[in-house]
């Protein structure tokens, strides 16, 4: 019960304020259409740079939790999912709002998100230390393969084309080699002094996620939709009703937990799979799509139940469970914390404080979510031109604040504009970011493995022998095979 030991750390004045601000900010950012949790977390990473590691991680965790739930506000009120995780919520949330039950729908959304979130965090608390202990068995060759697995998994699952996904991951890995080689100290691919320090992770995160979104907002402005009145609805009534829908809550939470544990899968899949499952299991199948509360309850409990488990492979192996978790990895690394057993030994206090804060963040999300949803309807109507320019300003100042270096801002803007055009060609940002983050880890371990292998049977033999290496290589191949089969199924 180590997690209880650090619970009081969450309730210090500074941490609590950050948690509240992170939750409220996350709910509002999540509610704004087009601002995905991944982008919100990326945009906030520069702010956490000046904070202590626990405060920084508390902020990012609260934003991650709240944006996933906040995305349901615009899904219900505008028929525009605030995040991909809320796509399934639109199906019954919007019809409920149309029949003047928007407040009821929002109540169900936040209550079920809370239940799912708590179950997800429980899984995170109990599974993470076990997997972290197991990671002690990993040497350079296994760590090299784990880094490759992380890139492969995101590349194949967060992309419409396996080849393009893997190509994007490779772009990230190559970009990570710019600057000085960590083992030999040789300068590589520095064509301009602005690249001499390599590509700053924060500049890359902000640029790759924020700028393409801004360009896309300006290119396709969102159409206006109906505006609904908020009816009066008792919270206790909604709570009791929600608890009665135990089947939807259970299906949603279990699906979310399982999908969260699968590296790379993410909230969108969790929401859609649980919606499909509850529809199949329900006696009122014909009501789905017309405003069936079970649809919202299952989808929202699933996408929040996914948050905790998506951090299990991230904190133990450095393999993110979702694209947002991939960005969160950048947040860990800027504070000098690398995923693995060290998080639960050297950095135990920070890690457990972060995990404990996620529990409190669920309560905050429930309380503020219900009361903020009324206010959020104004935020979600912020004109696109204001939103786009404001995001650009935050991205510029945020990136500059990290190293006080104008070159980082140029890199951020350049990567962002480049990513926008790459997106048009079908490439995705998440694998590039993960390649950039995991690249140095992969290369350092590869170099160490090569030094060891040179005294043995050579690098190929060293990297492919031993049961752990073989298991991870097989997992890489499975993720590629799964990506290919999903691509074929989509085309059919």
């Amino acid at each position: 019960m180590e997690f209880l030991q650090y619970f009081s750390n969450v309730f210090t004045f500074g941490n609590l304020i950050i948690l509240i601000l992170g939750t409220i900010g996350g709910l509002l950012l999540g509610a704004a259409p087009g601002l995905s949790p991944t982008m919100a977390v990326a945009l906030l990473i520069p702010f956490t740079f000046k904070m202590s590691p626990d405060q920084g991680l508390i902020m990012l965790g609260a934003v991650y939790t709240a944006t996933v739930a906040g995305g349901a506000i615009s899904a219900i009120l505008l028929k525009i999912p605030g995040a991909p995780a809320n796509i399934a919520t639109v199906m019954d949330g919007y019809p409920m709002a149309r029949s003047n039950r928007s407040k009821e729908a929002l109540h169900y959304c936040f209550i079920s998100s809370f239940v799912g979130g708590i179950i997800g965090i429980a899984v995170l608390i109990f599974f993470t230390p076990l997997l972290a202990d197991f990671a002690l068995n990993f040497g350079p060759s296994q760590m090299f393969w784990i880094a490759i697995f992380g890139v492969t998994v995101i590349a194949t699952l967060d992309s419409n084309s396996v080849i393009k996904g893997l190509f994007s991951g490779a772009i990230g890995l190559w970009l990570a080699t710019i600057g000085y080689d960590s083992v030999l100290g040789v300068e590589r691919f520095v064509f301009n002094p602005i690249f001499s320090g390599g590509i700053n992770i924060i500049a890359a995160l902000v640029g790759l996620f924020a700028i393409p979104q801004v360009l896309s907002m300006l290119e396709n402005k969102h159409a206006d939709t109906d505006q609904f009145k908020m009816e009066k609805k008792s919270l206790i009534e909604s709570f009791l009703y929600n608890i009665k829908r135990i089947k939807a809550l259970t299906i949603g939470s279990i699906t979310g937990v399982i999908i969260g544990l699968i590296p790379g899968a993410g909230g969108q899949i969790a929401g859609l799979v649980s919606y499909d499952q509850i529809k199949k299991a329900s006696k009122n199948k014909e009501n789905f799509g017309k405003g069936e509360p079970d649809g919202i309850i299952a989808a929202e409990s699933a996408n929040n139940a996914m948050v905790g488990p998506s951090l299990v492979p991230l904190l133990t192996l450095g393999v993110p469970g979702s694209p947002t978790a991939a960005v969160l990895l950048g947040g860990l690394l800027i504070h000098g914390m690398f995923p693995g057993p060290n998080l639960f030994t050297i950095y135990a206090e920070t890690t457990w404080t972060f995990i404990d804060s996620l529990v409190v963040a669920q309560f905050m999300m429930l309380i503020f979510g219900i009361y903020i949803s009324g206010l959020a309807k104004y935020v979600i109507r912020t004109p696109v031109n204001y939103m786009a320019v404001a995001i650009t300003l935050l991205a510029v100042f945020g990136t500059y604040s990290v190293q006080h270096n104008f070159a980082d801002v140029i890199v951020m803007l350049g990567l962002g504009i480049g990513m926008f055009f790459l997106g048009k060609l079908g490439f995705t940002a998440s694998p590039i970011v993960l390649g950039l983050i995991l690249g140095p880890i992969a290369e350092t371990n590869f170099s160490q493995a090569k030094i060891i292998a040179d005294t043995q049977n050579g690098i190929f033999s060293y990297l492919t022998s031993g049961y752990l290496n073989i298991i991870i290589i097989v997992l890489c191949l499975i993720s590629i095979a799964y990506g290919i089969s999903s691509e074929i199924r989509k085309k059919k």
Partner: protein
Amino acid sequence: MIKFNNTISVIFGLVFSSILVFLSFSGNSEAYLFPKIISSSMLLLAILSLIYFFVEKKENLTELNIKKLYPYLISILIFVLLGQNFGFYFLLTVLFVINCFVYSKKRNLRTSIEILITTSIFVPLIYLLFTVMLKVQVPRFYLNFNIF
């Protein structure tokens, strides 16, 4: 309107990976081993996408309305070139006002006043957050034209 299709995507993949292969293999040190492996894998993936392109023969089209983006992209270019000389606050305030106006649905006096009010609230908030609270000293307005 620019149209993107699979052909452009495949050509991009081949050209980009070939450049990276050339750059990686032009380094002689052992430090270039990892980039060599990565760029070779990229070239292999680009060749696979070329084969796939001929097998599938299906064009997925996406469009880009570049004209809509010109004001924003030009603003970014101006900022990159002059940001350090004209200062972040001055230049970004000007660009904020111009972009908000250019991208607004209605361009009339009322919109202009709304934009000016929003700017006069938002920019001081940014100043408060970054310069006062986070103690970030961004380039200020001064005119020594030493770009980079």
